[in-house]
């Protein structure tokens, strides 16, 4: 690891001030991704601003019946929080599908949003990568790209966002609270992460000096008909090849409202209003599920090794919608897929 200066932020304002004063500084909270990237020489911050002691660990009800989750709430604390388990079991399930017990005990809510891609070439400093070194080229296109994206890609980058938690947050219409040099603002999950376009070095729409302070969930948690179905190379402790967060509101055998978000297929959790519109107002039927799956993948493009993801994603969506409709969510310990 390269040497760096270390300082502790006294409060949020101090964190923002320290960050604005040094563009090559990084905030550190759980550190599970940043410390790893520093060991690989992918990240080379001159300063780490330790925010782990800031008072951002509360989970509180909001005045409109939602839940506000402090940015430093640990992934494990969030997954096992009684309110989250009871009202937002999709979020709890997605978090428990990710990483390991140890990592969930370290990783923060804000850090989970800000984790970087697991593209092999992003980690391999001996190869070109536009995300790591803008303008150097994309080694994944034409390279080993089994884990890479099939939706929303660009000629510059086909990386995926690796989070499970974020896929659930996207499906639940969460919002992200941030504080920066110009004050506070709220960003919908749909706009928090970006597509790579010609600036793949930017993962999110956070501005320089901005810090995530909380994630807010709206009142509706889809606690009855939901599932998080994650397909991966190992049964546990592996990133998703494809994952699906599905949440339905069912009334008299008809779908009143549907939420569908995909992980492992794009530079951000992938939602598509057109696919959800295919489901809304329709009876709970296989044909409807298959049509929605086809619509959400309509612009999918494979890059060779990851061609299989296009079929796999459609099958996983259909299976997930069935699990959600039947009220039999995927267990994250018994790995048999119902």
């Amino acid at each position: 690891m390269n040497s760096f200066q270390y300082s502790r932020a006294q409060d949020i304002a101090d964190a923002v001030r320290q960050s604005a004063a040094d563009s090559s500084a990084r905030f550190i909270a759980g550190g599970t991704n940043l410390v790893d990237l520093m060991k690989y020489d992918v990240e080379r911050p001159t300063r780490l601003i330790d925010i782990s002691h800031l008072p951002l660990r509360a989970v509180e009800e909001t005045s409109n019946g939602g839940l506000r989750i402090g940015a430093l709430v640990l992934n494990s604390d969030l997954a096992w929080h009684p309110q989250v388990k009871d009202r937002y079991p999709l979020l709890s399930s997605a978090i428990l599908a990710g990483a390991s017990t140890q990592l969930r005990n370290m990783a923060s809510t804000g850090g989970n949003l800000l984790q970087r891609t697991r593209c092999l070439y992003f980690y391999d400093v001996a190869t070109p990568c536009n995300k790591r070194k803008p303008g150097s080229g994309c080694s994944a296109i034409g390279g080993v790209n089994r884990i890479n994206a099939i939706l929303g890609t660009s000629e510059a980058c086909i990386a995926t966002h690796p989070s499970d938690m974020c896929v659930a947050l996207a499906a639940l219409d969460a919002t992200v609270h941030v504080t920066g040099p110009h004050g506070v603002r709220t960003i919908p999950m749909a706009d928090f992460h970006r597509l790579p376009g010609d600036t793949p070095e930017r993962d999110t729409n956070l501005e320089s000096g901005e810090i995530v302070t909380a994630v807010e969930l709206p009142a509706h948690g889809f606690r009855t008909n939901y599932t998080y179905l994650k397909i991966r190379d190992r049964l546990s402790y592996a990133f998703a090849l494809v994952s699906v967060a599905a949440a339905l509101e069912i009334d008299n055998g008809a779908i009143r409202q549907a939420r569908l978000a995909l992980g492992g297929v794009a530079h951000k959790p992938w939602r598509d209003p057109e696919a959800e519109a295919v489901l809304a107002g329709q009876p709970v039927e296989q044909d409807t599920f298959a049509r929605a799956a086809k619509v959400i993948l309509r612009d999918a493009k494979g890059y060779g090794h990851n061609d299989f993801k296009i079929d796999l994603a459609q099958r996983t969506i259909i299976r997930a919608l069935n699990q959600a409709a039947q009220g039999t969510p995927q267990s994250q310990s018994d790995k048999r897929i119902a």
Partner: protein
Amino acid sequence: MQKVSVALLINGDRTQLEIAPWTTLLDALRDRLHLTGTKKGCDHGQCGACTVLLNGRPINACLTLAVMHDGAEITTVEGLARDGVLHPVQQAFIDHDAFQCGYCTSGQICSAVALLREGRARTRDEIRETMSGNICRCGAYPNIVTAIEEAMKAT
């Protein structure tokens, strides 16, 4: 070179260290405090050999900086036995031959101690899932799960 002062409570002993900020908790434990029971496997949070308990909960010591844990309570495998008597999980690992080479064992045991204390995992599937952050290259998994089940019955 910047040095930062950190106070740690390790296995019940108060320790003060002056360390460079890029020192991981794992390196501080092994190289500065000579607590070599905690192992360095992958050094990237992928194997779990470095698992220690931070305020009672298992973490990867290789992915965290020691300077970030001022005032924290850390338990390593060296801190589990009491008055010369092995922790029930340690005894169960011996009784059920839950290792071969032993390199992952201290991490496995720390994770298992926390698993028992948290009390969420009950079935073999749940034990396997909770323990999935600890890789055993020798493949002693069936005996590891059995050892944990037995320790669960005993406590």
